[in-house]
């Protein structure tokens, strides 16, 4: 019958239309469908039905642990009364060497006698160039650079606000633990392993080398997210 296809299609639309009201009713007794965390989580999962709109910025989708947006530098939690903790970055330059967009600039600090010091004097990231690929965080051997979850970086002036310096980039370890708890925990364990392996090597000169290699490999696995 001519026109049957259109009617059938309209049936699908009407189903969606009615379905959205049914879902409203379902949540009516449980605190409503909107601005309700429980309802919001169900709505965003495969089990969600009805209207799936997110009322941004009042409602925000949660970001998964691996979410990546513009790197930041990890520092120790600042001691009481101080603003900054100790930098984890050793200015080794691996993030620079792997960065596809070449958006990282590091000036390595110098000792008074002019020899390089394993510490960054300056650290810049041009976030206009950064493509959020996460390779810097993936390959950093000191867990010093991590990808942030803060994606609201809009600003009025591109020319002054978009080159992040060390002060802007540095965030304490507690922040990293907050946004990415499982990964941070896995890294903690891996660091302890590596530390233990180092002391072992120091104790017995030349021995335990294979252990150490195995442990470094295991550490790499942690970074790759195998154990979390």
């Amino acid at each position: 019958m001519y026109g049957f296809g259109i009617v059938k299609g309209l049936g699908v639309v009407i189903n969606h239309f009615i379905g959205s009201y049914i879902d409203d009713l379902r949540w009516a007794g449980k605190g409503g469908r909107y601005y309700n965390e429980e309802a919001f989580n169900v709505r965003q999962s495969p089990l969600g039905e009805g209207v799936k709109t997110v009322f941004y910025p009042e409602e925000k989708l949660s970001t998964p642990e691996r979410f990546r947006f513009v790197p930041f530098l990890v520092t120790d939690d600042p001691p009481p009364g101080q603003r900054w903790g100790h930098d984890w970055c050793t200015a080794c330059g691996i993030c620079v060497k792997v960065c596809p967009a070449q958006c990282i600039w590091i000036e390595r600090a110098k000792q008074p006698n002019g020899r390089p010091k394993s510490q960054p004097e300056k650290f810049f990231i041009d976030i206009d160039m950064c493509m959020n690929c996460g390779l810097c965080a993936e390959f950093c051997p000191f867990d010093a650079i991590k990808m942030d979850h803060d994606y609201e970086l809009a600003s009025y002036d591109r020319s002054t606000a978009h080159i992040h310096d060390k002060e802007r980039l540095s965030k304490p370890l507690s922040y990293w633990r907050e946004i990415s708890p499982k990964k941070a925990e896995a890294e903690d364990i891996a660091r302890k392993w590596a530390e233990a392996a180092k002391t072992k090597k120091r104790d017995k000169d030349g021995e335990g080398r294979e252990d150490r290699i195995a442990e470094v490999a295991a550490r790499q696995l942690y970074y790759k997210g195998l154990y979390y």
Partner: protein
Amino acid sequence: MSDIILEPTADAPGPDVELTPAQEATAKLKELHPNVLSDDTREGYEGMIVYADSITEVAKTLRDDLGFNYLSSVTGVDLIEEGKMEVVYHFYSIDRGGGPVVLKAQVNRDEPVLPSLVSIFPGADFQEREAYDMYGFNFLGHPDLRRILTWDGFAGHPLRKDWKEPFFEEEFKPYGSRWPDGQVFRVEEKTPYGKNVQYPPGWAPTGEEYDIETDVYLGLTYSRDATPGLKTDKVTVNLGPQHPSTHGVFRMVVTLDGETIVDLKPVVGYLHRNHEKIGERNTFIMNMPYTDRLDYLSSMSNNLGYALAVEKLFDLTVPERAEWIRILMVELTRIANHLWALGFLLNDLGALQTPMLYYYLERELIVDFFEAASGSRMMCNYMRFSGVAYDLPDDVRGMPTMKFLEELIYNNLPRAIDQGDDLMTGNEIVRARAIGVGVLTPEDAIAMSTAGPVLRASGVPYDIRRAEPYSYYDHLDFDVAVRYNGDIYDRYLIRVDEMRQSLRILQQVLPYLKQTEGAPIFGDKPQYAQRAPRSGESYGRVENPKGELGYYVTAKRRSGNPERYHVRAPSFINLTALGPMAKGHKVADVVAILGSIDIVLGEVDR
């Protein structure tokens, strides 16, 4: 992992092994053209070097006598040290499948002239234009040899090794200015007027330089109206580049007789950033996130193609779990891409937004999964050489991953596909608009080197997952979707079919993922600077949602950067068929025909 889950494939090479179709054709070709062919003896290279002037005869033999009727890729390579340039051709056999016959035509670098293959393989059209644009090859007999990605009047040929960009810092990344004494600067401070252009010394514009658009109009057909009665003029109209129907910044120059298309030429390159030059500056791993930006709707598949090419070059093996994860990711990508493509096709046909948003709801779940697994919704950057970046996550949107995937694969996606079927497939308006419009015959589809759904909707069941299986596709049970009419409606239906086949594959992959839980996901220790263990070339190709995506990578031994990095972009080459398909139809149909090809401008323009 000690327990082996897969049996080795039955056709392990024995002593009296049969020649592959490509080897057989190569041997016969050498018999037929003994004087103009010689083996490519460079270390790590395959194929044959052909005397440049004879390329047309050799190609004709390949097509007519040996069945290698599909010219997949044409690209240039600059051999600056030898003072030569070469054009690399990859021919495939549609009927017999298997690997390529690779031909290389070498010409003098100062005078790069060789015959064009367009008369034999019309699919070479855009690719030869690209090679002309990027390297300056003069293809004799090419009907319309103009620049394609850069604009007319561009100075130089950018992929030549001695061409430098306006702000040239260093030949290879990483740049020395970044570490250990990095003082931040912005490139726009170092170029004239803050633009990425360079001016010849003493150049003073007169205004006439801008009148360079005439070539594209000259190439159009203006046939005289032979019918008696009212004589009407043909009108040339630009559709695009800023037009909602063009899916991006894409221009179609059409000549109209009334409302009927007489001729159509696509104009591309508005998003051109010279992906390949960037790729040759990059180290191998740096290219991975750049491949995301090609076809940005299916970044996982793009990653896979590049990973395959480099793994071939580096002789790396991939652990089992990583392979299953890869298949999971690329098949989900295929579904996500097709949901998107169908939504936009229907949008172009006038079903504004409603079907698109219904499809989009389920696509959203797929990108949620990608986000949880890789950290990014669309720019996944997930594959690594010999593995994947991360294992599957613990949970996605508050649901354990495997449960989420089961829910998705057994419930949400099939439901969405069926619902789309109910909504649109039988719709009389869609049928009236789509059936019999934009027909591409199987012969034309092969000749024009179209790939993917466009090729298969024309009745050519060619799928790389079957023709030259990569990863574990030879262990999986699925059908190659094929439709026979070659019109818009069939290109719509084939995408629905392909999604169903992808679901079949995914249902087979899930048990393997459960079985391999906890197994390694990459082969070797990951390194930030991998160097090529040997010099040579490799060509990795995958069945992208949009068609055959190929990466041609060459490298020198111990080099950290690819010497040549070429992307055979399916959307770009599928556009060759747009003009012939659109001829004789109305303006409103062109929009739908373009939608049925399913292009992404990030990949077309590169």
